[in-house]
């Protein structure tokens, strides 16, 4: 009797141990299975090792998003306090932490860039923040859009603006006028040839009359600029040769400095000023 009872007790223990091992095997297998399912990992969260952001992420135990919110809230209050003189010193750094903790939180990118440009007068920080926003949220067109604007307006860095607008264009959902912003940036940067081609593209693809008209105006402007440059160049050469600017465009043409007398896109003549040797358009390109 006694032997069977303690045997029974150890057999139950054995059963328990077997159950434990089965359960352990099961959860280990399930863990492997769960790992294989790729959860949309928030991009950009572990590429570059910047101590503070990383550490904070480790230390927040699954409450990353709340930590991001908290720090962002604090940042808003911090940057609204004018008495803190050196508050812009670590602007990018602070917003980098927020972005690191919650790369999909959109507001901090835009607001951070805004503060950088308007208050801190630090466009480089703005670009850093916006680039991060674009990298972490490739589906959001606002970031290259904003960056393009900063390049265009604040820095007057037209190649940079062009690059951003081009990046923005490619994102589905970007406004249709970004294309035109890009074309304009190309124009401003001085690559007239490409500018003409770009505007021609836009003209051809224009979905409505208004867009067509805008494109047409720009094309007019580009042609006018090209023509003006050509005339300017030819007139300078004439002047060099003859000591004074030509009296009119025909003279330039007859003497071979100009291949042809340019007309504007509407077929009109340009207004030539013999004193300066430059041409102007009859009408403003924007009021044709």
């Amino acid at each position: 009797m006694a032997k069977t009872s303690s045997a029974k007790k150890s057999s139950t223990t054995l059963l328990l141990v077997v159950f434990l091992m089965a359960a352990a095997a099961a959860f280990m297998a399930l863990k492997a299975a769960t790992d294989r399912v790729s959860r949309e990992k928030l991009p950009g969260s572990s590429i570059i090792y910047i101590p503070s952001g990383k550490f904070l992420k480790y230390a927040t135990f699954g409450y990353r998003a709340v930590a991001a919110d908290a720090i962002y809230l604090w940042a808003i209050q911090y940057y609204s306090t004018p008495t803190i003189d050196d508050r812009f010193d670590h602007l990018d750094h602070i917003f980098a932490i927020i972005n690191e903790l919650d790369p999909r939180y959109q507001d901090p990118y835009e607001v951070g860039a805004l503060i950088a440009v308007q208050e801190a007068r630090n466009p480089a920080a703005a670009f850093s923040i916006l680039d991060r926003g674009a990298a972490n949220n490739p589906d959001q067109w606002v970031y290259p859009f904003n960056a393009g604007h900063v390049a265009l307006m604040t820095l007057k860095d037209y190649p940079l603006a062009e690059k951003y607008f081009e990046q923005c264009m490619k994102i589905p959902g970007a406004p249709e006028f970004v294309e035109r912003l890009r074309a304009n940036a190309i124009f401003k940067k001085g690559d007239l040839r490409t500018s003409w081609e770009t505007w021609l593209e836009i003209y051809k693809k224009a979905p409505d009359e208004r867009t067509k008209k805008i494109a047409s105006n720009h094309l007019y402007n580009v042609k006018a600029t090209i023509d003006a440059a050509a005339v300017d160049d030819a007139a300078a050469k004439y002047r060099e040769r003859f000591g004074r600017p030509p009296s009119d465009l025909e003279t330039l043409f007859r003497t071979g400095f100009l291949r042809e007398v340019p007309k504007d896109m509407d077929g009109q003549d340009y207004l030539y000023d013999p004193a300066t040797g430059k041409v102007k358009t009859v009408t403003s390109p924007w009021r044709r």
Partner: protein
Amino acid sequence: MKIGAIAGITFKEAKRDRILYLLFFFAALGIGGARVLAILTVGDRVKIIKDVGLASISLFGVLMAILIGTGLVYKEIDKKTIFTLLSKPLHRAEFILGKFLGLVLTLFVMTLFMSLIFLAIVFAHTLKIEGTLLVAVGYIFLELVLVTAVAILFSSFSTPILSSLFALAFYLIGHLSWGLELILKKMAPGAGKTLVRFLYTVLPDLENFNFRTEVVHGLPIPPGIYLSSFLYGVCYTAFILGLAVLVFRRRDFI
């Protein structure tokens, strides 16, 4: 059903514990406070409400599970009510399972109330209830169930303070599992790596139940993960309860 009887009185006893209501009060405060915090932010207010709300439910739920769970078995032993209980025709496993179910029931009720407050506030802001929020809360509850099992395991052989610390450590380790994953990627193959790999597989990965980020940002949740996470939680809980029964069976009650 004997397990049911024990679950019943455990529930009755747990809901008398004032700590439960104190934590619930703070949770409600946290969720309600989200509404206030939202005013301070620039931009999307609802995100902060959802974040803080879910975080409150999760954090205070875990505290409830740990603080009440670690006292459950210990109190019975300390107050010696366990003598009368175990002198009945009861398997020790039935005792442990009954305590576990009673506490799970208590947590279910508390989570339900916290969620109702949370959903009400979200509804007030967005005028709709997203099903995904319920999913997030559901998996928070699964995490609480697992933490409860751990609390009971430690409570069956240790004092409440130590048990609380162990259970808390379990929770923290559970959320740092991906840190081990990172280490694994950087290690050279060898005995060390095998050990770390083993630890990584055995130690809990509580991030499997964390859908808060996806839900708040509206990211898609791959359907395969619902089942595998759920089963993972169930199997791990079963494992912990099995351990608790094993430990409890060998105990002498002096």
